[in-house]
C-alpha cells in the first residue's frame, strides 16, 4: 500500500512534463464542472416538490374550476416555469461571456411574458376572488350566507388575534428572559429546565383541560380567551430564544452604563434593549406567524364561529356540500399567504440572525 502510494506520487515530484500539467488542468476543470452540475441537479430535484405547490396554488386560484381547463393550465404553467428556470440557469452560466447580461435577462423576461400571454392568459380569471367584494359566494343567496362572514372580517380577526398574541408574548417574555439571563436566584436552573419541558410538551394534549378552564373563566367563544391560551403556549419558546440574545449582551456594557451614572433600568432601556432589537423582532415575527396560522385552538375554543379567523374561513370555504370549489379555496389560500410574505420580506434579516443569536459589537 505504502509502496503504491509512493509510486503514484512519483511523476509529480520527479519530472513533470508540460503535458502532465495540461492533463491535470483538464482534470481539475472537469471535476469542477461535474461538482457544479451535480449540485444544481440535486438542488433542482429537491426544490421542485417544495416550490411547485406555490406556483400551482397561484395558477389554480386564477383559473375556473372546470377540471379540463384546470389541468391544461397547470401543466402549461409548469412548462413555462421550467423554460424560465432553464433559461435563467443558462444565462447564469454565460454571464461572464455575455456583453450585456442585463439585456439578456430582460429578453428572457419578455419571452416568459409572451409565453404566459399566449398559452395561459386566455384561461385566467379573477372570478375565484369574488369573495373579496361579494359575501354571496354561491351567487344564489342560500342560507349559508348567514353563516358566512366577509373575508375582511376574518382577516381583521386574524390580524387582531396575531397582533394581540405578539404583544402579550414580547411584553412578558422580555423581562422574563432578561431576569433569567442576568440574575442569580433560587430555582433559576429548574425554571430553565421547566421552560424547555413546557416547550417540548404537546400542547394539543391539553385541549380538553383548557376548554374546561376557559368555560369556567367565561372566556369560551371569545377571541380574548384563545389569545391568552396561545400566548401562554408560545411564551416558553419566546423566553428561551430571547434569553439567548440577552446572554450575548456583554456584562461589561451594562456595568459600564451603571458606572456612567445610569440606573439598572436606564441601562436596560438605553444600552441592553437596543442590542437585542433583532431578537425581539425575530421572536415577535415568529409569534405573529404562529397566531396567524393557528387552527386547532381557534376551531375548538370558538364554538359558534361568530368570530372567524382566516384559518377557519379557509376551512369553511373548503367545506361545501355542493362539492368543493378548488379555485376559490386556492384564492383564499393566496389571500391568507400574502400578509405572511409581506411580513417576511421586512423581517427576514432579523430572523436569519436568530440562528447564530448574534449581536455584533
Amino acid at each position, binding site marked *: 500500500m505504502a509502496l503504491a502510494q509512493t509510486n503514484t506520487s512519483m511523476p509529480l515530484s520527479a519530472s513533470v512534463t508540460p503535458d502532465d500539467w495540461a492533463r491535470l488542468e483538464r482534470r481539475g476543470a472537469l471535476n469542477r464542472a461535474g461538482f457544479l452540475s451535480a449540485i444544481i441537479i440535486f438542488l433542482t430535484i429537491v426544490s421542485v416538490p417544495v416550490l411547485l405547490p406555490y406556483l400551482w396554488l397561484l395558477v389554480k386560484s386564477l383559473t375556473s374550476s372546470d377540471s379540463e381547463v384546470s389541468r391544461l393550465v397547470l401543466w402549461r404553467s409548469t412548462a413555462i416555469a421550467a423554460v424560465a428556470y432553464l433559461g435563467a440557469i443558462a444565462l447564469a452560466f454565460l454571464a461572464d461571456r455575455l456583453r450585456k447580461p442585463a439585456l439578456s435577462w430582460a429578453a428572457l423576461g419578455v419571452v416568459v411574458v409572451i409565453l404566459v400571454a399566449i398559452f395561459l392568459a386566455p384561461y385566467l380569471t379573477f372570478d375565484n376572488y369574488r369573495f373579496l367584494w361579494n359575501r354571496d359566494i354561491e351567487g344564489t343567496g342560500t342560507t349559508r350566507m348567514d353563516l358566512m362572514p366577509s373575508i375582511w372580517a376574518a382577516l381583521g380577526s386574524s390580524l387582531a388575534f396575531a397582533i394581540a398574541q405578539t404583544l402579550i408574548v414580547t411584553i412578558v417574555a422580555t423581562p422574563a428572559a432578561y431576569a433569567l439571563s442576568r440574575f442569580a436566584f433560587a430555582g433559576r436552573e429548574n425554571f430553565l429546565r421547566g421552560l424547555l419541558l413546557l416547550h417540548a410538551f404537546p400542547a394539543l394534549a391539553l385541549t380538553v383541560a383548557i376548554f374546561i378552564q376557559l368555560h369556567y373563566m367565561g372566556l369560551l367563544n371569545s377571541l380574548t380567551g384563545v389569545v391568552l391560551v396561545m400566548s401562554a403556549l408560545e411564551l416558553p419558546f419566546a423566553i428561551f430564544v430571547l434569553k439567548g440574545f440577552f446572554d450575548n449582551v456583554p456584562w461589561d456594557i451594562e456595568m*459600564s452604563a451603571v*458606572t456612567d451614572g*445610569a440606573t439598572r433600568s436606564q441601562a436596560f432601556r438605553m444600552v441592553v434593549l437596543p442590542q437585542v432589537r433583532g431578537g425581539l423582532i425575530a421572536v415577535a415575527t415568529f409569534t405573529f406567524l404562529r397566531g396567524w396560522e393557528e387552527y386547532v385552538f381557534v376551531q375548538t375554543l370558538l364554538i359558534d364561529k361568530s368570530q372567524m379567523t382566516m384559518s377557519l374561513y379557509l376551512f369553511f370555504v373548503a367545506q361545501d356540500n355542493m362539492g368543493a370549489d378548488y379555485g376559490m379555496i386556492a384564492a383564499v389560500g393566496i389571500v391568507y399567504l400574502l400578509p405572511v410574505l409581506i411580513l417576511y420580506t421586512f423581517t427576514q434579516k432579523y430572523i436569519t440572525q436568530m440562528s447564530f443569536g448574534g449581536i455584533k459589537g
Partner: protein
Amino acid sequence: MAKITLDNVTKNWGETQVLKPMNLAIENGEFVAILGPSGCGKSTTLFLLAGLYAPSAGEIAFDGHNVNRIDARDRNVGIVFQSYALYPNLTVRENIAFPLRFKTMGKEEVVRRVEEAANLVQISALLDRRPSQLSGGQQQRVALARALVKEPNILLLDEPLSNLDATLRITMRAELKSIQRRLGFTTLIVTHDQIEAITMADRIICMNNGEIAQIGTPDDLYRCPNNLFVAGFIGTPPMNLLKGEADGRCLQIANASFDLDAECAGAVTFGLRPEDIALVSPEAAQLQGEVVTVEPMGREVFYTIDTPAGLIHALEYGEAVRHAPGAKVGISCKSDLTLVFDACGNRIADLHADFSNHAEVSARVLEPAN
C-alpha cells in the same frame, strides 16, 4: 480626584474568599498598578472600588468618606473595561456623551466636554462613526474618553492594553501615562503584564491568591522583593531561584557552598537575577554547568545552563554569542544584591550570599582535598 483607602476589605463568593482582608491607601493623583496572575482578585478589587461589587466586610473610603453604601452610579468613577464595553447602538459622540446624560448640564457644555475629551485622546475625526467601524486601538481611545469626560473621582483601567497589538500597546502605554500626568486623576490600572505595571505606575500592588504580596515602587519590587512570589513574578526572564541549605555563615547549594554575611540556618531559597550572572571559566567559579540553549535576542544573549542546582538562566549584554551549547561555564555574580528567602518564602532582610569572591572560595574548597 480622590484619596482612596481600603480598610480590611474582603470579598467572598459563596464559601470562597476571593479577597482576603485588604488594607490599602492610595494618594490623590497617584498612578497605581495592581499586578498579579489571572484569578488573583485584582479585577475584583477594581469592581469593589467602582461599586459594582459590594464588599463582604471592611470599609472603602474616598477622601475619608465611607462609600460602601453609595451606588456605583453615584461614585463618579471612570472605568475602562478590558473589552472597552462601548455601546454598539450609539455613535462615538453619543458614547462619549453618555455619562453626561445623567448629569444636569447644558447642551453647549456637553458638546464642549465631548470635544475636549475626544481631542485629548485624538479621535476628533471619528466622532460620527459607530464603535463597530473602529479598530481596537480607536475603540480603546473612545473608552478612555468616555471615562475621562465625566471628570471622575478615580479612573479605573481594567487590563486596558491587553487587546491591542504589541506596537500599539507601547504607544498607548506612553499616552496613558502622559494623560494621567496632565490631568492628575487618581488612577488604578489592573494588569497581568509586569512591563505595563513597571513602565506606567508610580507604585505597584502585587497580588497573589487574593492577598497583597507586596506594595512598592517598581524598583522596590524588582530589587527587593519581599517574598518568593514577587521575586518569581517580577522580571522577564524571571529570577533564578535555587534551593539551598544554610548553616551559620555558610550556604550550600548542590555541591557548591557560599559565604553568608549574617547567621542563618535551615532550608532557604537563593535568588539571583539573570542579568546579574557573569559567565566565567569553570575553574573560576563555585557552581559549574553546561550551556543547554543559546538565544540571541539582539541586544543581549539569553543562556540556559544546566547545573547541579537546576536550570539557570543568564543574560549577557552585547550581541556576541560567547558560549556555544555544550560549553562548560562557571556561574558567578556581578552584583552583591543577591537575595535569600526563608522556608516560608519570605525574604530574610539584610542577608546576602557572597557569590563574587569566587577565586577565594574555590581556593578554600580545594583545601580539604590537599
